[in-house]
């Protein structure tokens, strides 16, 4: 049996240790600390854990328990923090897990292609025949800007400065589109469906209108350089969003969130792979696509890139076990 006065004595005896632990685990000190410091902090941490359980057991006042709670929780974070970035793991993720997961979850990619491709083809055909239809899809000044931009062949190319600005824009805009296609899939897949259809329809309307104004070859020559990377990546991001939405719907008797958590690693690998592809695409789109290289060379490069992307997705990372 102890009396109430002991609690004051506990505080007074133990306070130096608490203060010391508080300072040792402050900020990033545990990551940079010497072996002696870390070992000292570990000893203190165990002692403070004991102090906390003792204080809780003995009915100490709430403010003392709250203080020890906060101290232990901060020290816990400092000790069990993550070990930092391991680059090899990221390389494995991008070059082997990513293509393997895309193959494994191919139905979602197929659905994503359909959701993007069907509106694209429809609006492309309609807006290449009818200006009124194109004007319904997009504001007329946007269409005119587009038609004007592709009116001349990019024979002299843009200057390097404009290329850098446009590469920046493609990173900001296109990777953003892909991320939105993915993230909105959490709304039971509806968001991904919307963004895929919307982007497909708008792209189709633009290409259709530019074709109608007689510059179809120009825009396709511009697009063929980066489209294999960029469109594939957006479609994969959309597919990951659809997969996320589907996991919420088909709960397989384990609850919605658990079902989603089950698919988490697969979904993340696909999104990160798509983001990586989009960063590459932005470089191509900013610097190669608008260059003065002859049309035939651009078509050839586009074909090579297409084969590379398909080959990568079809064969990379085969024979390795995919963590599910």
């Amino acid at each position: 049996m102890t009396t109430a006065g002991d609690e004051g004595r506990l505080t007074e005896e133990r306070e130096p240790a608490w203060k010391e632990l508080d300072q040792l685990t402050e900020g990033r000190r545990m990551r940079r600390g010497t072996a002696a410091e870390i070992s000292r902090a570990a000893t203190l941490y165990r002692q403070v854990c004991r102090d906390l359980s003792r204080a809780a057991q003995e009915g100490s006042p709430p403010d003392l328990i709250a203080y020890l709670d906060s101290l232990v929780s901060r020290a816990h974070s400092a000790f069990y923090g993550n070990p930092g970035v391991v680059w090899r793991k990221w390389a494995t993720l991008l070059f082997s897990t990513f293509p393997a997961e895309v193959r494994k979850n191919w139905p979602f990619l197929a659905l994503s292609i359909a959701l993007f491709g069907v509106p694209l083809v429809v609006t492309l055909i309609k807006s290449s025949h009818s200006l009124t239809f194109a004007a319904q899809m997009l504001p007329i000044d946007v269409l005119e800007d587009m038609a004007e931009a592709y009116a001349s062949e990019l024979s002299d190319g843009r200057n390097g400065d404009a290329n850098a600005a446009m590469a920046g824009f493609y990173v900001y805009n296109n990777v953003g589109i892909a991320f939105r296609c993915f993230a909105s899939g959490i709304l039971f897949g509806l968001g991904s469906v919307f963004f895929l259809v919307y982007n497909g329809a708008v792209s189709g309307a633009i290409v259709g209108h530019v074709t109608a104004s007689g510059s179809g070859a120009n825009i396709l020559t511009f697009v063929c350089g980066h489209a294999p990377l960029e469109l594939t990546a957006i479609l994969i991001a959309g597919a990951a969003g659809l997969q996320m939405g589907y996991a919420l719907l088909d709960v397989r008797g384990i609850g919605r969130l658990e079902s989603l958590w089950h698919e988490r690693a697969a979904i993340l690998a696909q999104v990160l792979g798509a983001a990586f592809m989009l960063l590459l695409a932005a470089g191509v789109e900013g610097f190669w696509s608008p260059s003065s290289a002859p049309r035939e060379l651009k078509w050839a490069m586009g074909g090579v890139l297409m084969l590379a992307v398909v080959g990568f997705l079809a064969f990379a990372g085969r024979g390795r076990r995919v963590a599910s």
Partner: protein
Amino acid sequence: MAASRQTQRAGEVRQSGDLGSFTTKLDTTLSIETPERVIFNHQLAGPALRTAAYLLDLLIRGAFVLVVVMALSITAVATGRLHGLEAGIVLVLFFTLEWGYFVLFDLLLSGQSPGKRMLGLRVIHESGRSLTPAESVLRNLLRAADILPFFYAIGLSTMCVDRHFRRLGDLVASTVVVREPRLRLRKRRVELVHHDVVGLPQRLMLSREELAALSLFARRSPELGRSRAQELAEIVAPRYRARYGISGGNAVDLLLTLLSRASRP
């Protein structure tokens, strides 16, 4: 008649059960057991604090963009032409700040963006460990859904409904945002006073909760002011007067005496 009374009683029971689950819902702590076999409580951060932290981060990012844009415009004016390269840099910066800012700081500062750090918040995994890079990427990518249709309307509503104040990104990544306040310990020792209260036994058995409350009162009463302490003590004192059959006396003295004569369970 008997049957109807029976149903009524069942109804009452269910009601109290509902009340029970209601109080657990209001509980804003998350209990975590460490490998040292100690259970400690994290305080969860609610929508208000998290909005404040987000706004701070927004300000920081805005200020950073402003400084970079100003520096670039000054060089553009100085050299007499606008470089496309600089526009490109600003756009890549926008992108990095929009999608990479939180992930970067989650990794650098173990789950704290500068705004969260200023307010003493931290993102952790539900189990209490720090969040991994993958979890950070997921919860921050999902911002694109939480932010819909305007200013995090979906995220904030999800947070208000969820037991642990999680937004969609937290639900997907199994993370929670907790408060890590740096509390200071009250220095004051409990002054044990012995008053002669007629009829009060020399040794008392009080429950743990009673002891904690009395001890907190004893430590705080000097800073409460005499009349406020008196007021508070009068609320509790009748309970003990009734229990030990005492009448009258000063309520504050009674509570302090109770504490001094109490033995711990």
